[in-house]
């Protein structure tokens, strides 16, 4: 039987009148690369924040690596590496000072994190920029720095909100390969994306959220079959499932 890294059992979260997540149940096995797909406002980021323990569910139960994020927040945070959609770093620190800070917060010994930092800096082509102030970094450089920060503490679970958005194609490729490599070592990754090709290329399992509800879950191949058309793509399946298949009509209307 597979060990579950993350378990959501009928989890709901409301913000005033808006039901962001509605009775959501998910089981994510250890070592899985799990993709959260859905249009804007579908509840992807809220789900991630619930898993992180940053938001408290109104109802339902969440378990992360066997722990309740609300009851054991520090222990859960120790095993998670998180990259938010828009990384907010301390702009007055240099990249290296930021990573040093993150390592200290996680209590990672120098001899453990420094070789890793140097390897990642080189891989993401940030070497030579580590002593520059983050305020002068491009969005992509900030994204890479945040990703390195998330990987520093050897997390058991990586939570990445749109992680490849600001990356150049080489870095995106490195990131994809890296996710596969660490998955083989048993690290679980949950990530959200709007880019369906990326989800198809790297996710072992994908779920589609829509207005806070789970529409479907499965491998990319299983989801493609749901569109009921031969040789259909994941995009077509996604548009069909999220009732967005009228895009062609909209584009035509916009053109005139």
């Amino acid at each position, binding site marked *: 039987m597979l060990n579950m890294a993350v378990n959501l059992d009928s989890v709901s979260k409301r913000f005033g009148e808006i039901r962001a997540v509605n009775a959501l149940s998910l089981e994510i096995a250890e070592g899985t690369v799990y993709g959260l797909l859905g249009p804007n406002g579908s509840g992807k980021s809220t789900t991630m924040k619930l898993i992180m323990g940053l938001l408290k569910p109104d109802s339902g139960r969440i378990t992360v690596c066997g722990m309740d994020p609300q009851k054991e927040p520090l222990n859960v*945070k120790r095993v998670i590496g998180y990259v938010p959609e828009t990384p907010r770093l301390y702009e007055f620190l240099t990249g290296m000072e930021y990573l040093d800070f993150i390592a200290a917060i*996680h209590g990672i*010994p*120098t001899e453990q994190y420094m070789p890793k930092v140097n390897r990642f800096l080189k891989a993401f082509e940030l070497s030579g920029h580590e002593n520059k*102030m983050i305020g*002068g970094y491009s969005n992509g450089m900030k994204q890479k720095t945040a990703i390195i*920060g998330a990987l520093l503490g050897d997390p058991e679970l990586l939570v990445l909100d749109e992680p490849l958005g600001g990356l150049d194609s080489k870095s995106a490729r490195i990131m994809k390969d890296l996710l596969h490599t660490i998955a083989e070592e048993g690290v679980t990754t949950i990530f959200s994306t709007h880019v369906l090709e990326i989800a198809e290329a790297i996710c072992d399992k994908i779920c589609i959220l829509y207005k806070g509800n789970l529409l479907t879950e499965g491998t990319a191949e299983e989801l493609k079959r749901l569109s009921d058309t031969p040789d259909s793509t994941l995009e077509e399946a996604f548009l069909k499932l999220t009732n967005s298949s009228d895009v062609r009509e909209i584009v035509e209307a916009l053109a005139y």
Partner: protein
Amino acid sequence: MSFKKALRIADVLVLASIRAKRGVKLDKDGTAKKDQRNEKVFLLGLPVVSAFIYLLLWKGNTPVEVVTSLLSQSLVFLPSFSLLLMVMNGLMFEVSLSSFSTSTDIINWLPIRAKEYVIGSTISAVYFTLPFLMIIYGASLGAAIYAGMINVWLLTFTLSLLGLLIGGFAIEIVRAALNEASSVISKRAGKYGQLAQLVSTVVIIALFSMVFNYQVLLKVMTWFNITVEQAWFVPLLWPSLAVIDILRSEFTGGALYFGGSFIMMVAFFVLGVKARTKYWVPAPLTVTLAPTRQYSNRNGVWSLFGFSLAEQAIISKDFKALFRRREMATFLAIPLMLGAVTFINNDVSSLWDTSIPIFERLGFFLLPGMALFILSFYLALVSVGQEGSAFMNLRVGPIASSSIVKAKAFVGFVPSAVILAGILSVVGYVVKPSLQGMMTIVIVSFATIIEASLLGMVFATRYPDFTEVPRAKFISSEATLLGLKCRNTAGTSR
């Protein structure tokens, strides 16, 4: 050149500055309201204040000779003061806004001429300086009507407006030069460049704050009136020298200085345009800092105070923020400003005068002591909000809230404690209180700044404001008011 375009630029710059400073107020339908406080003060300042001062002098039956003497000094000082205030205001604008709201490069790619931008930018700067000056002009107008010196007042008023424009154009040159200089210094000098920038920012803010201290202003005005004539070769003083000559009925000299001032204004405008054309808006710069040490996650100096590794990391980060973020310079200027005011308003030699009771000599240090109390309070008060959206880094990290509070309270305490140690050394060396007295002073003063820091933390944790755009706010306005009230109560009780 299109003057209409210059006015539109001024309009946008004014709107951006007002919203950056005061936030955006919305109508019921969600439309952004126009803040017209400056216009109201501008229009009402002159008539209301002049009428009030006139009635005050008339009601008090003040001797005309007394009014004439003080008014003459004020009228001589006003044109140079207007110029100075304009320059200080411009510099304050440069240093006080966060990089989010100031970093704009639209003038690089919009079809705007340097002339149009310089005029627009100067008008927007005048807009913020003039309301305060209108109150001073109003006060002098009331006195001038009472003393029958309305002609000289009109001349002073004209020269003051000229001074404002000279100051406005001068600041355009300074801004362009500063941008270029700070780019070069920051790139080449790294952390020394940053330190130089911090020191100059703190000094500017301290000087600017002192302009609004009436005791300091009176001293400067008296000194100015005595020495201004010896510095006739400084063009920036010509507007004031024109007033002096007119007061003495030396009309040729007055006309020359007036004409000279006008030519200077045109010259500054041309130079401002040239500086903007040459440097325009610089590209955002990247500062590289050489690491001061080998990165190592071992316990440092702060562990001596019992802090964990993670708490030490927060302390170290917050100290970097204190010395690297422009917004924080305002707080560092507090002790400098109040210390300078103490030295200007008091006779320093009296500290060594043993005939004066010790208690009175200790009074000299009261204001600097208050400054440290305020510094400690403010550093703690803004400590949580200054994290901005980067607070997420702490929230997702395995660190308890109590550790964050402990570390931040300590950062609020340390700068004041260091300065306090220096002040107490001076007290011990110069005033020489008894051992018992000295120990009491040491314990009470350190306890006071610890108290201020903890008090600040109470409000910082309850009412943080993480807003960063258009301007970093750090703490909600309600908490600032509440905190100030508590701070004053606590300070008074000491």
